[in-house]
């Protein structure tokens, strides 16, 4: 049998009646973390947007599209005769919110050794920024595809994954989170397909994708980044025996 750890009861912290501060350090740290995100966004969102544009320009260039910056966060993207887009990466589109959120949580809220938090926070921020650039590029690549592929090919390229998503959503063999994800992805594909079939311009498809998938992908990626951060702070630790059984 195990032996209890001989420590004194933490009486100074136990009672509600003995509360001296508002709600102690957790509330203060929460306010600091969220205040950091709020103020940081107001001050830095344009810089983040400019950074994202610079990275996106490199990626799009590597994929064969012609790019030209016309402002700190404005980009003209050209792909052949049919595709010419003036793209503006706004503060909300940039990685400002996510990167500042991870930084705020890392610095002000979460416990742990400084180097672990720095490594975890750095990894999470890098992951989020990378994915955000991919998301921005994917909007432009979708527009390029809708503009250049032709209606028939565009319909097929949207209908096939739509049917797949519908099948996954209706299947009883896959997990519930996968079915929900498939349903949401299928909904997005249905919106895009509707636009193509109705003969809308490629820019309508880009707008739909941006408005619908953008926020979901952004908070989903931020959630993944936070899990990466949590794991980095915990470090490699063997699972308790009871959990493994």
């Amino acid at each position, binding site marked *: 049998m195990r032996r209890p750890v001989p420590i004194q009861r933490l009486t100074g912290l136990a009672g509600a009646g003995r509360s001296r501060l508002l709600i102690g*350090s957790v509330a203060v740290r929460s306010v600091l973390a969220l205040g950091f*995100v709020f103020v940081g966004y107001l001050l830095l969102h344009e810089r983040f947007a400019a950074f994202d544009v610079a990275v996106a320009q490199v990626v799009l260039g590597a994929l064969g599209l012609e790019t030209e910056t016309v402002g700190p966060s404005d980009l003209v993207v050209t792909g052949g005769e049919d595709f010419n887009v003036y793209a503006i990466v706004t503060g909300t589109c940039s990685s400002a*919110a996510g990167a500042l959120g991870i930084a705020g949580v890392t610095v002000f809220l979460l*416990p742990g050794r400084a180097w672990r938090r720095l490594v975890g926070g750095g990894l999470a921020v890098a992951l989020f920024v990378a994915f955000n650039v991919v998301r921005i590029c994917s909007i432009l690549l979708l527009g390029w595809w809708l503009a250049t592929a032709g209606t028939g090919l565009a319909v097929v390229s949207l209908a096939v994954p739509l049917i797949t998503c519908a099948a996954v959503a209706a299947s009883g063999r896959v997990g519930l989170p996968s079915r929900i994800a498939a349903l949401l992805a299928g909904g*997005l594909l249905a919106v895009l397909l509707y636009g193509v079939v109705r003969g809308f311009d490629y820019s309508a498809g880009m707008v739909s994708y941006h408005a*619908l998938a953008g926020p979901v992908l952004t908070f989903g990626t931020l*959630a*993944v980044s936070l899990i990466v951060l949590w794991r980095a702070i915990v470090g490699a630790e063997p699972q308790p025996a009871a959990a493994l059984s």
Partner: protein
Amino acid sequence: MGTLYNAVMAVALLLLAWGFAQFVLWYRWGTAELESALRRPPAPQHRYHLVFLIPCLNEEAVIGETVNAIRELAPDATVVVVDDASADQTRKLATGAGAMVVRRELPAAQKGKGPALNRGFQSVTTLARRRRLDPYRTIVCVMDADGRLSPNAIPVALERFDDPRVGGVQLPVRIRNKGSFLARMQDLEFWGMSAIAQMARVRTRSVSLGGNGQFTRLAALDSVGPCPWSDALTEDLDLGLELTLRGWELDCASAGWVSQQGVETLRALLRQRTRWYQGHMLCARKSRILWESPVVPRRTALETIVYLVSPSFVMLPWSIAFTLGLAAVAAHIAGAGPIPLDGVEANLGLYAAFWYLLTFLPPVVMALLYARRSEDEDVVGSFAKGHALVFYAYVNMAAGWCALTRIALRRDTWAKTVRVVEVADLERAA
């Protein structure tokens, strides 16, 4: 103004992602634990001596039936009722049902649930010494006066103590009086969501102890001291933290449950939740020592801290962001400005359908899963309640703000939750 709004939404994005990450982990781990628990048939447990501890203050409406129900399930167990100077027939009914009653008298009595439990604990330790019970094989189960255990609750809880590191085991909680809409929503909240979260926390050994269906090893309680329960508003949560700080692990008996009465008016619900949040926020002050403790595994500490900071870090700020978002949509519908989405003119119906799915699908799915685990809930009803859950969250948000206000005003006195006589109990007594 637009940038200011976007900055608020940046904060909202972080909160949404934080909650989503927690939800994904809880869902994955919780459902896996539930399936695993249901596959294991409970074995009869004869190795443990079980002591039930029931603090009571004016519980004549329920105490007799509660003791009877316990004695049916565990005839060999000792039932200790702590009568906290009740003015009604609590003592007589408990004694008549076969319980050992410990009476507290005013002015020492009626100082809260924690002190009442500590008085009962003194009797339990005396009893254990007299009977020479092994404190590692003596399990103390704290029950509310209106608590009812599922038929398998005792074996599935006791078998968790076969792991010598386990100091406490909590049963998932259900609401019994589901006649009213409000009580049914509480059952959805407890049984449909909180129970899954508790099961998930088995993975990190950071299950929260509740005040009902709380099994604790006597040796673990002894390690906390002669008065294991504090005078904190959530003395159950506080005890769990104290056990964790002493290196004990906390587990959940996922295959069983304990039921209790739900509150039936909005006012009472708000008051109950305000007390819980106030206690929860005050317990969050132990986050730092939890992390710095050399005996608490990192993942246990981190998960507990994430849980402890949730009201102040997630729920309260989210209530502002969520309300602002709703106001923006309402303003658009009223024609006051542009909707905060791009390109809506293209196909409003599809956009609306997509955002409807995103907002309501997760709670509806949770409600449908709840219906599968509840014998008296149908698909149509759970579908509707899944929608209502989005707005029911406002009760907790309001309670969170009330709790914060009370902390700021240093108000910490509370009246206990009122019980009602249940029809089933009356029929059974007749």
